[in-house]
């Protein structure tokens, strides 16, 4: 990646928004980039709106929040409702079309994918966030898929189960973008 890319990742608590932000950040560091991930969340643990701001840059990052998002990811209707207004000109909304069903995208660059169904079809409902990560990486080119796979492999190796579902979910998302 050249220059700087700003992403907002939106969803509800428990979907793994912060997890994919962390994976992207780790992948970026591995590529020698600067990365900064900040989150705002409510006091409730699950089910309410959560937003993570991720900045990846060749240069050091001053202000920690996103001001002009290149891409806004919405994995829940409430996230879309809240984040549509902050989309900057030229920015794109990437959303889960199973979750975001009522939004006026007129005049906005948007692209929906049935992320939840894809995860269910794989028998891995918890992997929806990793499918979304694949979509995000393919559409933005923020980091290479190899970097993400290497971060994921490292995380899997540190767990006892060691299954490959996360890698496959990411790859499925990545491949879904033509």
């Amino acid at each position: 990646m050249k220059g700087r890319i700003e992403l907002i990742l939106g969803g509800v608590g428990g979907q793994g928004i912060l997890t994919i932000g962390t994976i992207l950040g780790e992948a970026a560091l591995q590529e020698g980039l600067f990365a900064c991930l900040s989150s705002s969340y409510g006091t409730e643990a699950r089910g309410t709106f959560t937003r993570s701001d991720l900045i990846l840059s060749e240069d050091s990052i001053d202000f920690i929040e996103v001001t002009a998002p290149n891409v806004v990811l919405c994995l829940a209707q409430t996230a879309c409702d809240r984040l549509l207004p902050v989309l900057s000109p030229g920015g794109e909304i990437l959303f889960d079309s199973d979750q975001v069903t009522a939004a006026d995208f007129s005049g906005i660059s948007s692209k929906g994918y049935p992320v939840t169904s894809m995860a269910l079809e794989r028998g891995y409902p918890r992997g929806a966030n990793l499918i979304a990560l694949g979509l995000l990486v393919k559409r933005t080119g923020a980091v290479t898929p190899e970097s993400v796979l290497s971060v994921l492999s490292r995380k899997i190796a540190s767990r006892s189960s060691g299954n490959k579902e996360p890698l496959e979910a990411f790859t499925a998302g990545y491949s879904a973008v033509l």
Partner: protein
Amino acid sequence: METAGPIFASGNEAIAEGAFAAGALFYAGYPITPSSEIAEIASRRMPGLGGMFVQMEDELSSMAAIIGASLAGKRAFTATSGPGFSLMQENLGMAVMGEIPCVVVNVQRSGPSTGMATKPAQGDVMQARWGTHGDHGIITLVPSSVQDCYDLTIRAFRLSEEFRTPVILLADAAIGKVREGVRYYPPTEEEKGVRPLPDCPPSDYRPFAFGGATPPLPPFGGDYIYRITGSMHDERGGQAANPGTADRVIRHLTEKIEGKRDRIVSVRSLALEDAEVAVCSFGCSARSSKAAVRSARNRGIRAGLLELTTLWPFPDGEVRSILSRVKAVIVPELNLGQVAREVERLNDFSCTVVRVNRVDGGLLKPEEILAAIEEGAS
């Protein structure tokens, strides 16, 4: 833990790792948002380091426990946020009066009282200085990045030992929670510092000798038997509520820190050499300020940044120096002017001081600061 390259970690994680690297072997605390990860990590890591983690019933006892652990010869720390920091003030005073090294991390959140638990604020600047009653000196360091969280925690432990005082690491929810690249390294012996032990015979030991070098502090339980009290005491620790002793003790507690500000105060400068407008900020607001200064420079405005990484003792000389040579000083902070008042106190130069404040739980946007810079430059 040592890392080869940068790892992606939060400020809270880096504070915990910084404490372990500095040799901390005791943590007592009561978890509170947005500092809880520090307690969580300490609970996992302390046993493996040969140290101890204790979850206390509240913050009063947490502070008491780290004082006890420190007197037993261990490096000890706790972490909290506003409501807990309020409860710690009484025993923080005990650590001041007893001259007991320890590190207190306050990851600031919106207050007063329970306020907004997950939202950042910088409203505890004055509480860090004067939260515990009575005249005294105090050291307060402020990180503005995850790397700072690691580095300044190590420094906090060294300063606490060197000056036999509690040191407050005044972080905020934004910096505690943000994830960035950070390098963990083993600090040198000099960076870690050592607590001096007495070399005199036990009968000659005076734990509270006035003036001169900081008196050594042997661990409790050895040949050196001494008394720690929150009440007024003589050089041996005996009760001495008389005017002469009181005057000497209070002046000593203040002067041992205020008089050594050269060894304590640290600031960072960005583009101040030719600046006509200076921004003076700290913590998360310094990040917003840095972005604003760069934008101003891109627009041809000669702006610079003085970042205060030490808040107490206040960097009087450094702030005076910019006040004496710029048209305006902009002070962005997530409170209603606690640092701005300090800047104004030092303003003998008719310099324009512009406050930029936000207290709704959000971070200051660079544009808000840029607008103030433009106003100051005009």
